[in-house]
């Protein structure tokens, strides 16, 4: 068993070295969909950070009492409970955004990153370390999606957070607010990061 990581190592790993989106390309399903408006992305990411952090903590606290055979089911139920809290909270305080997000808040349950962190980290580590890991991983995830939203919203609508930032004569690129824009932006961004900062052995080997 490797030496337990220190707090700062865990944070660095989540934010950059093992960044869930850029390095592992995990869990982009439910959140990529809302990156065409920055404000939706912010709310969605807040919900995701809360869910990942709290479920990592809970799974870690309960790890010695959870039978191995039913651990997936137990984790799913813990995650689903937090997602319901997020869903009700957004519905109560931000009804417009809740409407715009549609089913995507509920889909945080099946976001691979939540289950991935519970299974890969929280099941084997102490509560505090798991809390940090969940927080760092989800913040690293949120950061990338915010960058994508910051690229898509100005190009697609000419605005940022609803304020006009592009010059008057600017023709919005409709493609950026549609699905292909998100695929292209994330694809190019992941390419850029992987080419500039190769990290894993596999990525290094790929440099022909």
């Amino acid at each position: 068993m490797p030496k337990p990581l220190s707090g700062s190592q865990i944070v660095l790993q989540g934010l950059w070295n093992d960044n869930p989106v850029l390095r592992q390309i995990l869990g982009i399903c439910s959140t990529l969909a809302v990156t065409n408006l920055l404000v939706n992305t912010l709310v969605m990411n807040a919900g995701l950070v809360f869910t990942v952090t709290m479920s990592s903590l809970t799974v870690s606290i309960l790890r010695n009492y959870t039978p191995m055979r039913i651990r997936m089911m137990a984790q799913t139920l813990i995650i689903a409970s937090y997602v319901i809290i997020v869903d009700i909270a957004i519905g109560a305080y931000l009804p417009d955004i809740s409407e715009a997000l549609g089913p995507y808040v509920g889909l945080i349950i099946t976001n691979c990153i939540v289950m991935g962190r519970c299974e890969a980290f929280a099941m084997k580590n102490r509560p505090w370390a798991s809390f940090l890991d969940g927080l760092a991983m989800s913040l690293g995830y949120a950061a990338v999606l915010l960058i994508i939203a910051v690229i898509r919203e100005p190009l697609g609508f000419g605005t940022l957070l609803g304020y006009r930032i592009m010059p008057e004569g600017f023709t919005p690129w409709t493609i950026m607010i549609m699905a292909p824009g998100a695929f292209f932006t994330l694809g190019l961004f992941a390419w850029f990061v992987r080419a500039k900062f190769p990290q894993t052995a596999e990525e290094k080997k790929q440099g022909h």
Partner: protein
Amino acid sequence: MVQVDSGTLLFAAIFTNNILLTNFLGLCPFLAISREIRSALGLGVAVVFVMTCTAVLNYLAYYYVLLPMGLDHFRYIVFIIIIAAFVQLVEMTVERFFPALYYILGIFLPLITVNCAILGASLFMIIREYTLVQSMAYGAGSGIGWMIAIIAVGAIREKVQKSAKLPKGLEGPALTLIITGIMALAFTAFSGMIQIQ
């Protein structure tokens, strides 16, 4: 909502509102499994079947159990349990009665439980207030659309890996995302035909 008949809805779910290319659902298994056509096909078939059946089961659970009891906030938990239980049941049945099929599909079935497209189809069906028949058509259409997308991307990736010399860092997920983007672009050509929301 706009009233559309189930046949139209089936077509719309496959082409104009493809669950992967317009709603981004089911991307994780999509990126991982689309390396070659064979496994893409296996996973695709399993998704079509599970998605159709769970859309119907979740419809029944939501309108006949959860709503009358005022428990609609618990739909996430109930849906995910139904999906997990159904997948488990299918896995055991297939293993027991169709060993040959299990050999092909076996490894894909557990993956389906965490496929967000399955849960997503059920949630869309509730939000858009589909009827039972419409839900079934929507579930089947979404599954078929997802299967078409993953098979097409699997085929393209197979060719690319054999022939092209790729720039550094592009290989793998980055390339798959860009290919998917181009395909999504092509699918937007269908979008004028039917609007469902």
